[in-house]
């Protein structure tokens, strides 16, 4: 299809067979003799000061080894967000704090010979709490006189701690008020998105031990091994050089493992006791005390001219960060920066956001990273204004979306915790996405008004989306590639495959560049002692940034191979040489030498050297992938139940290096997004306690909840990406909420403004409509 041998091919995931046969690949699949088991004591109060904590009774329990509290651990203010340095998240927490800020906040940790003993010891820790008034609503939290959640000394990076405001964002282009005045039609609407969790089936797990030389090793389920090393060093006040972080296989992350929340505790236990330590979250801990999506209330106002061209777009987002400010500024910046450039025809743009602390669980990175919440509102308001203008949803999107060669002032104005980077779109096929998607879903046949008298009514809806590929001029990845005697290559890179298939994509990139089969590529990743640095798995950066680094390293290795070949062939124009099937071949003379022979020569005989290279990649742009989503739903007017019937995702991720893996990313995102749209929701008691922290009461989709899902890959070529690739992992989680919302309107003429779309809310909306 594209003239490539290994790019665009469905190579089976290189780790898949080991996983499918149950090899011990995950963090907790390996055990060390003499391991201490760690369990954590959590706050029962939403907001309280720990007046005193008495661990003496617990310490007397036989086989309890160590108990940690704020009293005997380093008090270093830091952020748990595993971001690049300097982190854009505030330094507002210590390993253990003297104040607890939500039900489930960490109070103490026990390390004991068994888990049972550790649990028993937790019961004997006596804590005197001085309860404080708590605040659960972000609007209330920002009001004068609300309880101040972060009044501790020394915190930094918080916009206004006295008013519980983590961050305040304001970005403007043009004149927004004049823009609305000069519009013929103006529509405004508000949508509220709920607390939800990533639910990786493998919860957080960390095992720490000292190696034979007394160095600390952290084997951990992380998306950010290099940030783990840096932040653990910071928190424990030890040199980076004393720490080795190993990332084994990871049982899903989706953003929640971009946090350093277990590693420093386990590491501290190991350093204090010189013994291996193990800390594995339960499902309940995963829900309550890891991280969540940022709940958000988003208002979008669009003004358009009669011809449908947008003249002004205003977005306000109120984001709830819970008790600590992790990813607050950047997630909420992305709510604007990943959505507003899509409709760049509007010269007047305003994005304002506030991020508030509340006494609820802590929000962090979650697939979609704020864009999910932005699109939930934006794409429904686009439908609303289309209706007012008498235009079709596809038509209004076609005339307003960003095109090749175009830019948006938002790219420059709104970055990740600092100013962004101007960029021009170099790859995009949005009209084709809309065209193929509408065709596949049968849009123009189905858009007609549904029969009102039926009990079960069908409706269709769409949404248009973009995301990014890495963070420009911030995200960096690096890779080393070396040649072995049999013509195989080791790839050592810092990129972090958390189940996405990045290691396989990387093998394909090296295969293509060096003309060897993927079976001859040995990929070893994300071990801070062995591989070069990489920022980790986030911001849709795997294929683009980590893959870009591997591509650059492969090019350098290629040059070295060609240089050696010159002498072997007695030819001097390397442009005549091609690498294919493990050989270098001169197209001029027909001479041929195997990579194996080159390796033997250079390792042992002549021109002795290890053929190897290290290279890095950082991008000055973040090329957006684009997607058009379509759904057909059936709504039962008597029960209020929404059943997704068919879902179509037309996606432009540049060149899909491995289409089958790209398809998996797309479908996985959509199903996760359908769960967020229909069922997934944290439920709190009046005192702020999460009451549905298990899979029975917090329902994620199962195999019987999915519609017929059709993915369409529309290939474009992104010049900045390795072999034309852009990202694909995050964008598709953004579609289900607005697509279902628009389909609901199509089916029944109702809009539900508070997510998720539960049967109760559907029935209420129908009642209010007076149907």
């Amino acid at each position: 299809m594209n003239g490539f041998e290994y790019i665009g091919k469905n190579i089976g995931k290189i780790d898949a067979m080991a996983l499918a046969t149950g090899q011990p690949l995950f963090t907790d699949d390996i055990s060390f003799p003499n391991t201490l088991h760690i369990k954590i004591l959590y706050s029962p109060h939403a907001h309280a000061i720990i007046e005193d904590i008495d661990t003496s009774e617990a310490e007397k329990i036989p086989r309890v080894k160590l108990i940690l509290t704020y009293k005997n651990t380093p008090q270093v203010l830091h952020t748990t967000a595993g971001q690049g340095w300097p982190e854009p998240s505030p330094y507002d927490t210590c390993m253990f704090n003297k104040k607890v800020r939500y039900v489930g906040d960490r109070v103490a940790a026990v390390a004991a010979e068994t888990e049972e003993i550790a649990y028993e010891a937790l019961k004997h820790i006596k804590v005197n709490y001085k309860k404080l008034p708590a605040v659960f609503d972000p609007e209330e939290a920002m009001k004068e006189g609300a309880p101040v959640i972060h009044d501790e000394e020394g915190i930094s990076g918080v916009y206004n701690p006295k008013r519980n405001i983590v961050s305040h964002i304001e970005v403007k282009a043009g004149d927004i008020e004049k823009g609305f005045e000069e519009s013929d039609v103006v529509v405004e609407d508000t949508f509220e998105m709920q607390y939800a969790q990533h639910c990786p089936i493998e919860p957080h797990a960390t095992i720490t031990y000292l190696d034979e030389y007394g160095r600390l090793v952290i084997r951990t389920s992380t998306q950010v091994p290099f940030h783990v090393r840096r932040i653990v060093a910071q928190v424990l006040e030890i040199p980076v050089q004393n720490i080795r972080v190993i990332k084994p296989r990871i049982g899903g992350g989706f953003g929640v493992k971009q946090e350093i929340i277990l590693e420093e505790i386990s590491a501290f236990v190991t350093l204090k006791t010189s013994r291996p330590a193990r800390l594995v979250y339960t499902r309940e801990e995963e829900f309550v005390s890891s991280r969540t999506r940022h709940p958000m209330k988003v208002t979008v106002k669009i003004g358009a001219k009669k011809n449908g061209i947008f003249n002004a777009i205003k977005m306000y987002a109120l984001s709830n960060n819970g008790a600590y400010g992790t990813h607050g500024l950047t997630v909420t910046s992305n709510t604007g920066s990943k959505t507003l450039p899509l409709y760049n025809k509007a010269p007047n743009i305003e994005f304002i956001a506030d991020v508030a602390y509340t006494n609820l669980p802590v929000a962090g990175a979650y697939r979609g990273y704020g864009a999910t919440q932005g699109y939930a509102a934006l794409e429904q308001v686009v439908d609303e204004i289309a209706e007012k203008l008498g235009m079709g949803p596809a038509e209004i999107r076609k005339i307003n979306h960003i095109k090749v060669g175009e830019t948006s002032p938002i790219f420059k104005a709104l970055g990740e915790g600092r100013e962004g980077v101007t960029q021009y779109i170099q790859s995009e096929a949005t009209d084709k996405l809309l065209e193929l998607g509408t065709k596949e879903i049968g849009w123009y046949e189905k858009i007609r008004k549904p029969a009102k008298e039926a009990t079960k009514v069908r409706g269709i809806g769409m949404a248009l989306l973009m995301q990014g590929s890495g963070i420009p001029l911030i995200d960096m990845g690096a890779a080393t590639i070396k040649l072995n005697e049999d013509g195989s290559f080791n790839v050592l890179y810092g990129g972090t495959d958390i189940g996405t298939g990045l290691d396989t994509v990387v093998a394909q990139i090296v295969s293509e560049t060096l003309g060897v089969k993927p079976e001859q590529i040995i990929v070893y990743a994300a071990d801070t002692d062995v591989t070069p640095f990489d920022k980790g798995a986030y911001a849709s950066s795997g294929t683009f940034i980590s893959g870009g680094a591997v591509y650059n390293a492969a090019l350098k290795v290629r040059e070295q191979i060609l240089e050696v070949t010159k002498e072997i062939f007695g030819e001097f124009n390397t442009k005549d040489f091609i690498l294919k099937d493990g050989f270098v071949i001169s197209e001029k003379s027909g001479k041929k030498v195997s990579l194996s022979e080159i390796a033997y020569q250079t390792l042992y005989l002549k021109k002795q050297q290890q053929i190897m290279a290290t290279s890095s990649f950082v991008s000055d742009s973040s090329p957006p992938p684009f997607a058009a989503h379509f759904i057909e739903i059936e709504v039962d007017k008597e029960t209020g139940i929404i059943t997704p019937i068919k879902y179509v995702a037309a996606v432009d991720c540049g060149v899909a290096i491995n289409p089958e893996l790209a398809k998996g990313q797309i479908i996985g995102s959509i199903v996760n997004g359908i769960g967020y749209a229909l069922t997934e929701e944290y439920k709190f008691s009046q005192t702020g306690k999460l009451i549905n922290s298990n899979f029975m009461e917090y329902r994620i989709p199962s195999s019987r909840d999915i519609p017929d899902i059709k993915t369409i890959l529309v290939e474009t070529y992104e010049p900045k990406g390795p072999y034309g690739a852009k990202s694909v992992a995050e964008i598709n989680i953004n579609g289900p909420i607005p697509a279902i919302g628009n389909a609901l309107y199509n089916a029944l003429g109702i809009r539900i403004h508070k997510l998720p779309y539960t049967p109760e809310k559907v029935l209420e909306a129908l009642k209010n409509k007076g149907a």
Partner: protein
Amino acid sequence: MKVHYKINGEEKEFDIQPGELLLDVLRRNNYTEIKGNCYLGTCGACAVLINEVAKATCTTLAAQVNNAEIITIKGIGTISEPHLLQKAFVEKGAVQCGFCTPGTIISAYALLKNNPDPTEEEIKRSIDGNLCRCTGYVQQIEAIKFAIKLLKGGK
């Protein structure tokens, strides 16, 4: 107390505490191919075959199934000799993070033992207790269908 099982064809005897769960006993004895830790029987990652029925080990007392025959994912196929279901999962992109995969394949294997020609609805039902957050299930269902085709062709 002692329990006795036949695991993947081998006779085994373990010392256990009376209240211990099968998941903990088996993982402690290096059957780490069994994943999961929801302890409510809700995620399915810890499924094995107990006397030919797919069951969650996290809600099964170890003592309760004394003398049972247990088959884990390694009893179905190994990395050097994989089962066609495992091959199909690899080929069809049905393995992403792979944490739920052993349990899901156990469920599919149990289905095919009793019903070699299931409908799509029966396939979906067989794995609806195996939660997967990565794949969205479509490629898993395709893989099971593909394995059925391969298994039929092999006969």
